[in-house]
């Protein structure tokens, strides 16, 4: 099963490689990873999407906790949480598909952030399903490339899943 794990880590050099090294060294899988500073510049937050059975996920969270630079590990999957990802998609639609691309962008509450004679670059934010659906719908119009940020997540205030 897929899990979204959120980490608070010391904002020191080498921390990312400690975490990446833990995953590769023990054969765990990283599906996406995003890193950013928190309100305290000495602390960074990392959101890692990984997968495995319960025993593997338990080991992953324990192993992460064991790293000296990790302050806190939260398995978001245990909590009610909000998650978002952003994607930038460059499409090169035929003349007759252009209107459809713009219409889809509107439906998905995206924005066109760049355009050229032959392409649009569209920005969409949402949870994974929405991003996936948008990509699927745009495919027939001709996607040149896309870039995803990886997931970020935050716990909803005051609610714990039973």
């Amino acid at each position, binding site marked *: 099963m897929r899990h979204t794990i959120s980490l608070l880590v010391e904002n020191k050099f080498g921390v990312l490689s400690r975490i990446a090294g833990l995953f590769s060294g023990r054969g765990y899988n990283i599906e996406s990873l995003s890193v950013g500073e928190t309100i305290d510049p000495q602390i960074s937050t990392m959101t890692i999407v990984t997968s495995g059975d319960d025993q593997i996920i338990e080991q992953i969270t*324990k192993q992460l906790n064991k790293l000296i630079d990790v302050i806190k590990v939260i398995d978001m999957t245990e909590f009610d949480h909000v998650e978002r990802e952003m994607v930038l998609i460059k499409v090169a639609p035929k003349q007759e598909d252009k209107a459809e691309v713009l219409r889809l962008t509107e439906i998905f509450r995206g924005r066109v952030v760049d355009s050229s004679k032959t392409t649009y670059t569209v920005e969409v934010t949402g949870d994974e399903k929405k991003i996936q659906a948008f990509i699927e719908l745009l495919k027939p119009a001709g996607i040149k490339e896309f870039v995803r940020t990886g997931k970020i997540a935050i716990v909803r205030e005051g609610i714990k899943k039973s």
Partner: protein
Amino acid sequence: MKITGAEILIESLKREGVKHIFGYPGGVVLNIFDLLYDNKDIQLILTRHEQGAVHAADGYARSTGKPGVVLVTSGPGATNTITGIATASMDSIPLIVFSGQVPTMLIGNDAFQEADIVGISRPCTKYNFLVKDIKDLSNIVREAFYIATSGRPGPVLIDLPKDVTASKAEFIWQETVKIRSYNPTYEGNKWMIIQAAHLIAKSKRAVIIAGGGVIISGGYRELRELAEFIDIPVTMTLMGLGSLPGTHELSLGMPGMHGTYYANKAIQEADLLIAIGMRFDDRVTGKLDAFAPHAKIIHIDIDPTSIRKNVRVDIPIVGDVKRVLTALNKVLKEDIKEQWDEVRKAWLRQIDTWKKERPMTYTYSDEVIKPQFVVEKIYDLTKGNAIITTEVGQNQMWAAQFYKFDRPRTLLTSGGLGTMGYGFPAAIGAQIAHPDKLVIDIAGDGSIQMNIQELATAVINKLPVKVAILNNHYLGMVRQWQELFFHERYSYSHLEVVPDFVKVAEAYGAAGLKATRPSEVEPVLKEGFKIKKTVFMDFIVDWKEKVYPMVPANAPIDHMLFEEQKEKSEKKLKALK
């Protein structure tokens, strides 16, 4: 007053109570070595290879419980420490390794003798540091000692760029260390401890498996109290040997691949396993699905990742073994009812039957020296009052099987990583820490050649380390596997040319003795122990001898092969394949 980084380092080490450093000089650490030249408080022991330095520091640490300290230069000096660091890491041994580094401004430029040792050592250290600013130096040393020795101990590396040790700063010393992201759990959860006591009280066939954590935490008295109070038999992993005296009537010896029949039987028939400071290594469990099928498992360990890593656990208790056992014993004493005594006796009688059925034994010969006989004689002559180090392979297993370790910290062996070449330098480190003790490396002719250069270190420091070489001209354990599992195709396990160890020892200024017949074993050992010098004792042993009993890899641990039924075992092996 401002002092140099090198001076800050030495002052910090002094304040950490360091008396001995094992090391090897080189270009970028000359500032530090210069200060050690006439230092009265700290002695540097110059080894002949950086790997030897790390193993020596490791032997020092294992035999004393204090952290071992290493100082080497950059590049190859640093990379040579890796095997030693990984050895210590697998066995939770506290080490502080200082490596020189090229000046900060050259890092990343592929400078002469530059290696990214922080990157290279990351997966095999508990933590590592690159000191970028001299102002951080004393604090980093303090944190390194704290991290290495607290929680589940382990090696910590500090990389010291040359300019950091050469520049100057004020010396600052913080009395306490606090790392917000590092808070090991020492006290076990009270509720879990009560649950554990209930399970123990209800059990009919309980077995304790004691590991290295019992020794590290100093919880062996508490272990003994627990075992004796309610007569629970104790099996000890390789790292746990000595936590309960090997001569104790409740001792079952070692479990697992080359463990005793009765330890493995007891585990497989048990209704409760109390695993203390051990991590269910594959050499202990054999086939996981078939391990201890009837047992509930209580697992006490300071490292939460050890729990439920390999086996299912019913009662996990994260904490320091000594403290958890103290609390557990207290609860038990208030809880235990008497009628339960009878049930326990039946279990002990059953174990006794297994002990009689298949004791740990071998076939003596008066024609050719059996390696087990040498180990037995060493035990008889020392009465267990020695520090034993081993190399890795058959020598290690025979030492574990036939030497009865009666005290903790008397067996120093590379359990997790299985490092050949560990024993001799480790013996040197142990002898530095215990100048008056008898320190013996039980070696093989293959392993001893992996760090034989340390003869110079032993001789120059006048260390009376004894090395008993069980010489069979083979990489014996490899040969054994090839005989049993590879149709006797001895691919590259025959060493063919083995040096004359007596001459090698003498060439270095040590003493060399040799025994080729069983009758010579005792006289050679006696003489070797008497000589107040480094001694190599070369025992030409039966090359065909194998380590038995043996559980083939990934078989259930009660599917054991025994010496006397070789044919039968081979059939069994074929059936298992």
